[in-house]
């Protein structure tokens, strides 16, 4: 499956459109504020259109995951080729893009969330040029992570996304922005280092036959890494269920776990969310967190199936801790944004639990939950942003009775809140239910304990809803105005997605299903196979 526009592959377009926008933004004089905004919006809008195109053309019957042949919209060029006479021989790094059912929904989500983030950044006034340039660069980094199939490329995009995020929080954030930005940056960097080490270990353990020269060379190709036959005999990561394979898996896992974030690596999240401007919170919750779980599905599981199976129970246990612990922590928060940040921890726990189930329902549930959490939490953060723009406070106890004052706003809010609670008919329900149903087949008691999270979620969500929206309106908020057209523009599309996927989840499910099956079968099937000989 190939799709080219102006002879350039659609994935390249999707990835580098924002960079194009960024260059134009940088060339514009900084007084041209509206031109900068519209350029950013335009580039992300085109990205959304391309994402829809990709979605439409995507072949639902192809599995992908570990088979290069069933990856779609592939683009493979030799990018870096160092012919060195030294001991490590030839370094070949490919520009290798492609999507399957795991990444396709994420690409779609990234495009939509980025576009919405641009709209929600409309009222940014502080050095607007730099802001939008960084935002677009961030967009490219995120998109790149989801489409690259070369580990090195993946890693580059992973880092590319880190820096703009640091500045966006550190410059445009709230009062404690420097603290939050540095915490975010260092934490993620710690993960990156572990990832880098594991990547290098893999690189030196895997080799394939170079089609040009016919000799065996090391490779960063992820799909090649998934094939046990490609591991050199006697190399560090050869064999199955060896000590070093477990170590490498844990290193990769921690690298991704920090991003998810999985307990106990989650504390950067509340701080980053509280300090970040609304649009950045939206991206952070909407897309960035998914990179962790995406990484586990794309990298950790298929490359280390033996270790993945070995560590399945601890993974599920961490999912359980995330769900319950996140929910309890959310319940005790007084800051609206912090509450949603902890609810993210809780909801991402469901993703972890679902994928740890290692069966179709669980995996599909986890993948769908990734997408749904992206849209629902984005909505929630936008909702906080709307009220924060007006009242300049996020204290839950400062509000009350907004339902009467802001009916339109409350309407969207009700959808988002109930989607987060997991109301049937809204998207969160299906993914949570499938994750639990799947997990139950693998971990009976753990899932029962985790499922209790749905009660806690209802508890803190409804409590919040009551404190902010119900009751009587305090005098001081008499001047609040209802949601405006721009804010509706960003919330309504998300609400439509939430409802559409709630009523007819097949829209997304059939994209994911084949890949989820492939992944599960591959991981389960690999266990017990001898690797590296």
């Amino acid at each position, binding site marked *: 499956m190939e799709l080219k526009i102006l002879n350039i592959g659609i994935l390249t377009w999707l990835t580098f459109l924002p960079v194009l926008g960024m260059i134009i933004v940088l060339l514009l004089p900084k007084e041209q504020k509206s031109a900068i905004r519209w350029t950013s919006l335009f580039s992300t809008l085109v990205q959304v259109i391309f994402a829809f195109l990709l979605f439409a053309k995507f072949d639902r019957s192809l599995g992908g995951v570990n088979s290069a042949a069933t990856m779609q919209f592939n683009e493979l060029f030799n990018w870096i080729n160092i012919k060195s006479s030294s001991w490590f021989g030839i370094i070949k790094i490919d520009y290798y893009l492609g999507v399957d059912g795991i990444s396709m929904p994420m690409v779609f989500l990234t495009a939509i969330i980025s576009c919405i983030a641009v709209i929600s950044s409309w009222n940014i006034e502080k050095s607007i040029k730099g802001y939008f340039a960084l935002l677009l660069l961030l967009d490219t980094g995120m998109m790149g992570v989801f489409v690259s199939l070369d580990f090195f490329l993946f890693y580059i995009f992973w880092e590319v996304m880190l820096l703009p995020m640091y500045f966006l929080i550190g410059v445009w954030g709230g009062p404690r922005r420097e603290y939050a930005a540095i*915490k975010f940056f260092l934490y993620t960097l710690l993960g990156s280092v572990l990832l880098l080490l594991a990547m290098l270990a893999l690189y030196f353990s895997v080799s394939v036959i170079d089609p040009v020269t016919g000799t065996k060379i090391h490779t960063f190709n992820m799909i090649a890494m998934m094939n046990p036959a490609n591991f050199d005999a006697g190399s560090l990561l050869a064999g199955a269920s060896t000590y070093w394979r477990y170590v490498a898996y844990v290193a990769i896992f921690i690298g991704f776990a920090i991003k998810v974030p999985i307990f106990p690596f989650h504390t950067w999240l509340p701080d980053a969310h509280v300090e970040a401007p609304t649009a950045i919170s939206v991206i952070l919750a909407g897309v960035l967190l998914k990179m962790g779980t995406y990484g586990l599905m794309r990298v950790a599981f298929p490359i280390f199936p033996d270790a993945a199976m070995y560590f399945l129970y601890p993974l599920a246990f961490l999912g359980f801790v995330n769900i319950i612990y996140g929910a309890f922590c959310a*319940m*005790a928060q007084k800051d609206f944004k912090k509450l949603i940040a902890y609810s993210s921890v809780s909801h991402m726990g469901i993703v972890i639990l679902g994928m740890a189930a290692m069966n*179709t329902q669980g995996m599909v549930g986890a993948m769908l939950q990734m997408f749904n959490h992206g849209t629902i939490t984005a909505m929630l953060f936008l909702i906080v942003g709307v009220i924060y723009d007006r009242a300049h406070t996020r204290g839950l106890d400062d509000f009350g009775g907004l339902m009467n004052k802001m009916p339109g706003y409350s309407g969207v809010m009700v959808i988002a809140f109930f989607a987060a609670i997991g109301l049937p008919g809204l998207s969160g329900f299906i993914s949570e239910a499938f994750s*639990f149903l799947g997990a139950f087949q693998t971990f009976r008691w753990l899932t029962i304990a985790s499922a209790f999270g*749905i009660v806690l979620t*209802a*508890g803190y969500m*409804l409590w919040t809803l009551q404190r902010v929206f119900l009751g009587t309106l305090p005098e001081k908020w008499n001047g609040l105005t209802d949601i405006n057209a721009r804010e509706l523009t960003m919330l309504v599309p998300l609400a439509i997605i939430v409802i559409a996927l709630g009523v007819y989840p097949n829209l997304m499910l059939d994209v994911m*299903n084949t890949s989820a099956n492939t992944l599960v079968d591959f991981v389960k099937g690999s266990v017990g196979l001898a690797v590296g000989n």
Partner: protein
Amino acid sequence: MTPHLIIALAVLLLPLVSFIFLIFFGKRLTKISGHIGTTFLGIDLLLAIYLFFAKLYDTAASWDFTFSWIDFHTTLNNIPLKLDIGIMVDNLTAAMLVVVTTVSALVHLFSLAYMKDDVRYSRYYSFLGLFTFSMLGIVLTNNYFMMYAFWELVGVSSYLLIGHWYEKKSAADAGKKAFIVNRVGDFGFLVGIMIVWMQFSTTTFSGIFGAIGGGKIPFGSDTWLTIAGLLIFCGAVGKSAQFPLHVWLPDAMEGPTPVSALIHAATMVAAGVYLVARTFPILTADALVIIAYTGAITAFIAATIAIVQNDIKKILAYSTISQLGYMVMGLGVGAFTSGVFHLVTHAAFKAGLFLGSGSVIYAMHNALHHVNDHHTDAQDVRSMGGLKKKMPITFWTMLMFTLAISGVPLTSGFLSKDEILAGTLSFAHFTGHSAIPFIGFFVAGLTAFYMFRMLILTFFGDHHDAHRAEHLHESPWVMTVPLIVFAVLSFFAWYSFNPIGAKDGWFYAKITTPHVVVPEHIAATPTEEFLEEVHHQHNLTMLISVGVAGFGILMAFVIYYWKKISADALEKALKSVHTFLYRKWYFDELYDATVVAGTIGLAKVLAWFDAKIIDGIVNGAGSITKITSVISGKFDTYVVDGLVNFTAYFAGLFGLIFRKIQTGKVQTYILFAVVGMMVFVVLFGM
């Protein structure tokens, strides 16, 4: 697409259309939105009635329509893993459809007057539509998964309607409480569904029953079958307000009274009973015993509390819980048809009671408004009295409902209650659990007593305040018509032409105990034997039940009408008992002190743990890094750099010394050179 399917879908979707239409356009339509909603429900009711008759005269056991919804393209237990949704109409469903749409349509009608001045009139009607849709969904579905979905939707619409007047903190609290308590039950329900889906790869009723009937038991263990049944029953415990999750229902009375009639009396709370009825074929004997006791305990606790309440709606709320306990008990003892029958008859007279109380509250409210009294509680029975003359239609209909719920002959309630009680006797005969019938009869007496207490306090005697009494009027026709309809429906003849034998009616002929698929050694008493015994107990039951009901009614009249025994004196004599009952057995206090406080406390502890310990470790790691960097900075400045500087200093020192010999005089240099050369010559030349 058969015509029946289309009609069933239409019945299901019409209220949804009403909801969507009103939520978007209701604001602009203002008062017309009520009429639109009512019209939708009227049509819905007609379609439901058509479907009811069509089904009853059809020979097929059920109409089952299954659609493939999600296909996972894989297998589980070697069965293709799919999630099918579908609609199933059997006689039970058909009866439930009529119950739900009737009550809903009449409540819609009633609300036209009752809610006419409400600020969120259209919103109210749209949510009524949403509720009706969800409730019909529960009834029409053919699988547990969809049932769970609609189950939750019902919970949400209940939440929204209880909190209709959300400016009042108590209303907002009540809505929240209802939703969360229900969620606790739903949690069990969900786990139950997970077990059956995992074990049978399907969630359809027929699929599961077929698998168990075929000898497949969850995890191959009889205990797990019991547990699975009880977990599904958990959903019913939450929704039908069974002990220990009954605490939300009285609070839910904060919602508008028609909502209480629709949701918290007739339909939604009956969904739990419906769920038990649907699950009946897979309930083991052990599970049924637990269900029977749950129902009995609930019926007893609620009845005792209802005796001492003063709020007219609270009395009705506890009587609802008590009657729901009755139904659950009925199903638990194995009297399937009787339990369901009581659900149907109860729906009519309880909805009527609530609407009647709504009519009373409406009149009281208007009268209080006229005399500018804003302190008196319009719902307190102690400030009522004498309404019989002022509101004749309301009184006579209310009398009919009260007779029905008390189980007086010639009413529908008599028929259904008797059958349940006969069932409990039969149950006691087979299993030896004689506490169940004992509680059953005792509660029957209590019910008659407290219902007549309410009726006497409200309608008999003279009004509490003569001035206010002048402003009391009968409610408008949109409110009285539903009352009359329900009153008529509370008459025995609708269900059976034999006033003392429900078994002769169509209900028992058409809605029969489903085929139990549980393996024989863990199943309850076979249906035939059980019903045979019920038949034997029938006359005895009738005697006792009429006796206790009569005694209850008599006591109510003795205490509250003839005042032979002073209620106040009785209250004083039994002060501690009275307080205990008045405080609702301290359930709320208990839960607040344990579960709620525990949860919030744990939340605070964990948040503290998160902020101080986990984040403390992170920040600590940061601080340690920082301290290390400071130390290494000092080391760098003083030791490493010190060494470098020392070298430089040393060089400088020597420079100072050697500088002395740099005189700038060539002669000196030459002298050095010569001396140096001589030294070398002496050193090396020799």
